[in-house]
């Protein structure tokens, strides 16, 4: 019931947010005697606040690692999760967050004049650092985006592994897109389409409010759909977690292969033991591996070429290309109303040629960017399929570090006590 009420609150919140969303409207066109207040710009917050946020993040990460690895307590983890949703989400309005910081870091490398704040760098690095040691403890109870999904998960429906596996590649593709757009100066798409920002800020565009509602509705029955199937930072954390030296272990002593933990995991992150023998003959596995390796190269080449040709269209997200397109449309159809961007361009007095030249340069660079994105996507898919053809041996049920969110559900289901007895 508690989870149900939490879930309902989560479902209703974006709707209320939409209701409260006040769209700015222009003043009436005639004088009514009402004096418009002058717009004010708030003074930027002191840098101290940013470092306070870093301190809170660090403390939360330490607590998450402690709760998951030492206390093995789901209840305390839920408390931390609620705190993270309240602080990083509702109080700090979802910014700065580690998920979006990827783009800041990329832009800092791509654009020398862009200055990366140290606190932003800390938000980017600290969760990765913890993942290198303890797995995805950041996702477990610190990330505000994950927190809200964790809190509203009422009735987890298990997505078949053969669907969840390929869908788990989407974050890597999204990461590629985010890197492409951030490095080219086109914008921070991850932040622009953050599906939970409407909830945390209690207001947004109708589209984003709908997106929030959809994700929250999905989160009622699907465990962390954003984290598993979209989050680009999650892709980085996944890679870092594969190298984790001390990830969460399900059984505190020897696993008795009771299968209870795998049933409990809503994320399909627990893999069964293969000790009974992978009956697939070795030569069959080798044939599969050879087939997939053979497919890998053409796949990468094919997607690279397609990315090259798709590059100019992908560049439409860039504001300068958008302006050039609107300008071209306005020249083609002078009778059509002009957009604000075109009007602004006219007022600035810049020549149209300059705008088209810039757009052409950006489109050219996007050809390379699109090709790189295609190649990246090909490599990701190829690497995944090849990895599926490799034989792995597991002697017990293990949480796959890359996909385990360290949510601590499986601990309670494990009947093994620390001394090896069964409960």
């Amino acid at each position, binding site marked *: 019931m508690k989870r149900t009420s939490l879930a309902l609150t989560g479902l209703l919140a974006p709707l209320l947010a939409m209701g409260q969303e006040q769209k700015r409207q222009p003043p009436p066109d005639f004088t009514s005697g009402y004096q418009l207040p002058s*717009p004010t710009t708030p003074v930027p917050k002191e840098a101290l606040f940013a470092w306070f946020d870093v301190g809170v993040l660090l403390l939360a990460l330490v607590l998450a690692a402690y709760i998951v690895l030492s206390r093995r307590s789901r209840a305390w983890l839920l408390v931390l999760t609620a705190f993270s949703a309240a602080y990083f989400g509702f109080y700090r309005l979802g910014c700065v967050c580690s998920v979006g910081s990827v783009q800041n870091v990329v832009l800092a490398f791509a654009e020398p004049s862009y200055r990366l704040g140290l606190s932003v760098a800390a938000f980017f690095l600290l969760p990765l650092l913890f993942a290198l040691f303890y797995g995805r403890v950041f996702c477990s109870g610190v990330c505000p985006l994950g927190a809200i999904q964790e809190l509203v998960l009422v009735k987890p429906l298990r997505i078949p592994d*053969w669907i969840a596996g390929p869908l788990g590649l989407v974050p890597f593709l999204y990461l590629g897109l985010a890197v492409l757009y951030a490095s080219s100066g086109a914008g921070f798409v991850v932040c622009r389409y953050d599906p939970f920002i409407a909830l945390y800020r209690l207001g947004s565009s109708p589209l984003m409010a709908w997106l929030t509602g959809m994700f929250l509705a999905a989160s009622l029955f699907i465990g962390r759909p954003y984290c598993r199937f979209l989050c680009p930072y999650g892709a980085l954390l996944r890679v870092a977690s594969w190298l984790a030296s001390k990830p969460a272990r399900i059984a505190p002593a020897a696993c008795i292969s009771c299968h209870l933990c795998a049933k409990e995991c809503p994320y399909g992150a627990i893999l069964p033991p293969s000790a*009974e023998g992978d009956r697939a003959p070795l030569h069959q596995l080798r044939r599969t591996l050879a087939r997939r390796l053979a497919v890998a190269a053409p796949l990468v080449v094919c997607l690279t070429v397609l*990315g090259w*040709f798709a590059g*100019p269209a992908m560049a439409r997200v860039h504001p300068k290309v958008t302006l050039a397109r609107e300008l071209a449309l306005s020249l083609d159809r*002078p009778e059509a109303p002009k957009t604000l961007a075109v*009007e602004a361009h006219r007022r600035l007095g810049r020549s149209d040629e300059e705008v088209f030249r810039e*757009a052409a340069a950006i489109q050219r660079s996007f050809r390379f960017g699109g090709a790189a994105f295609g190649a990246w996507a090909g490599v990701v*898919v190829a690497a995944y399929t090849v990895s599926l053809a490799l034989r792995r041996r597991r002697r017990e049920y293990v949480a796959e570090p890359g996909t385990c969110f360290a949510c601590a559900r499986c601990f309670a289901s494990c009947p093994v006590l620390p001394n090896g007895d069964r409960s």
Partner: protein
Amino acid sequence: MSAYRLLCRFRLVLAISSALVLGLLAWNLVQSRSYDPLEATRLEQMQLRLAANPKDDALRDQLRTLDRQVRERYLHHRRVALQGLALLAVLASLLALAHAAAETLRPRSYSAEPDATEILAQTRAKAAQGAYVLATALGGILVVLATLGRNDPLGSYVREGMKPHATEAPGQASGSAPPAPPVGQGSLPPADPLALGKPPLAGSLPATPPTTRLEPEAPAGAGTQRPSSPAVRPAPSKSALPDLEPCLPAGLEADWPRFRGPAGNGVAAARPPLPGKGLKVLWKVAVPLPGWNSPIVVKGSVLLAMADSTRREVAAFDARTGELLWRTPIPYQGPLPKVSQDTGYAPSTMASDGERAYAIFPDGLLVGLDLGGSVLWTRSFGPFENPYGHASSLLCHGKNVIVQLDQGSDPEERKSRLVALDGATGKNVWQVDRAVSASWATPLLLRAGTRELLVAMAPPLVCAYDPDTGKEVWRVEGLGGEPAPCPAFDEHRVYAGNLGSYLFAINPSGEGDITRTGVLWDTSDYLPDIVSPLAFRESVYLLGPDGTLACLRAKDGSLVWEHRIGLTKASPTAVGDAIWLVTDAGRLVVLQPGDAYRELGAMELGEVVRASPAFVGDRVYVRGQDHLFCLGP
């Protein structure tokens, strides 16, 4: 029927209902876009027409009707959306509950775990297939994007060597705005006034782009017309522009007797060393009471007005040592004026004619003091009808004190005045009633050829007066917004404008209504909200409310460069060959004027600064939130 099956059916009904409501809400959302006042093309067109022809009452009435109808329809859609959302929330809640209950009651069947290895092998094979499907889908998306790219209208412009189409009118390709419809022509289209977002009907409007802001030169005397933006008029030859000079107060040329210096245009004769090249804090003293007004420096004294909600005073500090010379209390005599926090109780900068000093406060009390701090006379002009509190600063012309007293929201009520007082007695020398609404700007005094001009700005006018008689010399109509920045001038032009309106570059040599003939160019970009413009060396520097400093060419208003320097309220000052600025955060920045942003030096004062500094000799006097700083070698 079992309870489980009943719940399943109930769940199905709820799911269908939710989907239906969701669909209707989506439809409502699409519909509401058509009536969004922000997107209403028709409204914008009518606004432009009305701006071009403000006397057209019929057009005004139609605009009002359309405006009201758009808003009503838009708000109706919003109401429907909120009601639909509430219904959807209820349905979704019931759906979640029904699902939870159904899952609880669902009959379970238990079976032995299938062979894990077998499952794993099958899963892996399917997962690999799924990954290939994903790659294929991505490939499909890329193919679609590649196809879209080939049909992009931009493509022809880019491929043809960035040359615009032949159908384009001459002159457009070079960045100049396309020709505009003749103003005042054409009647409103008889179409459904709610049919928004559609191009106007053929024949009802000129075939030229309807949203263009450029207007052609119309013959003089054809009625008042607001210049549009961006509008670069055929610039008169330089010889046709008058030579402008400052009206410097006799004996105070080297002092800082008013807001923005002796000339009032932010140009200083002082030569302090640059930050990092000898500039240091010579002294720093606490200011007893708050106030955002700027310091003035007269005959070795730094004068400040200061006030909070209980006390107010005028104080003098020794300009050499910072020693407090005197403090004169100016008691409140009536109810406290209503002021905003940004205005405070002492926003107006004092002025001095060398014998006396004058201070005005938001309740309308004007005080004349001698330079020893004794009150000579007081005049009360308040209370003002001013939403933020009166904030215009004073200036002196000869032995007269000029006070700009603009108030009210309706210019036709003529509540505003411009008054010249005898500095010795406080009695009126002349007074002009002004048909303007409230403003917070300070007038500007200059000499254009043989005549002196007092330029004051308030919606809807930039107006010049004879400072000796108060007689109006010329006016430019079309100013809007809430003017707080002062006018400025350079060798040939006067600049006046503010956020929410336009910045006009004015040739001040005309007489009467020079809206058509005297505005050389105007712009609505980079407009300042508080900070006064600086006109210096054929450039105009504007500092917007977001902290962006823009450098425009004085001859045509085109942008030279822009740079974000941080939130700033203090106005820039040209000192020698450099431009000095102080940001809100207390960062003193010195720039080199030119074709690009370049800092010559910077210095942190460590305190919030909103007042414009005073420059005298080799010293700089900066009023911070709590302290008065003296910087120098």
